[in-house]
């Protein structure tokens, strides 16, 4: 934490404003996802969480410290759910009709993986409650 060492307080003020906006966006996405999960809301949750992580990487010298451990875990889980859903969709799109039977097992496995990740996300969200700095 080096706000006191910053030569220019305007940077700290600017950085804080950016973090507040990102935290607000994340909290809104979190609430929307918890209210009713959907692919669109999962994407929103994932994007806002990643923006929060990126702003920390860019401006960590200028903002109050916050732990990224739970946020990283959440980003990993949303990635698992998203990857499984996208792979399923891509497989369906590319699937040759003669290989439909052989693909069933993989499609089922991807669906299971997605559902499991979604369950873990809901649990992880109980522990990720970023406060406005």
């Amino acid at each position, binding site marked *: 934490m*080096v706000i006191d*060492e*910053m*030569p*220019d307080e*305007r*940077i700290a003020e*600017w*950085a804080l404003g*950016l973090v507040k906006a990102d935290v607000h966006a994340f909290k809104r996405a979190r609430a929307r996802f918890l209210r009713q999960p959907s692919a669109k809301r999962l994407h929103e949750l994932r994007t806002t969480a*990643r*923006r929060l992580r*990126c*702003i920390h*990487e*860019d*401006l960590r*010298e*200028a903002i109050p410290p916050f732990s990224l451990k739970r946020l990283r875990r959440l980003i990993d889980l949303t990635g698992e759910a998203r*990857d499984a859903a*996208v*792979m399923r969709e*891509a*497989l369906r799109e*590319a*699937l*040759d009709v*003669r*290989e439909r039977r*052989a*693909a069933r*097992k*993989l499609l089922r496995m*991807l669906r299971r993986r997605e559902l499991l990740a979604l369950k873990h996300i809901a649990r992880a969200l109980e522990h990720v409650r970023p406060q406005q700095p």
Partner: protein
Amino acid sequence: MKARHVDLSDSCGVDDAMRRIAIVRFAEVLTLVPALRHGRSMDLHDLRIACKRLRYALERYTPREPALLEAASRLGQLQDALGDLHDRDLLLLAMPKDLHVSAQRVRMQRDDALSRARALWRDAFATYGPFEGLMRFTGLGYGFGDGSAS
């Protein structure tokens, strides 16, 4: 790939801090761009992450620096193409051997995504192209585009 540290300790003002961050993030992208030429999955994945970091940074600055808007938008397109490619790579790894006809289709989609990403990159450096504002803002990227992705 871990993000490089941005030293803001002696920066003077918000514009200078913005520039420093953009320089570090753009340099990360430029370092990784040979991946577009050789097409290795892991390196392309790293390039996609670097594009994302740079785009997020630029999007934060566009209210103060609208000239960066076009670069942010182009980076989003690049990220989409590289994302499609990455999804196909993951799928190919998971596909059993008896899905060989479908796997061939997935490989073709991967190649299409790579061609799309290469074209988007090359075109970004054209005169008055999407990266013009970013190059002026950071002083980086001159000499890229010509053959760097073909």
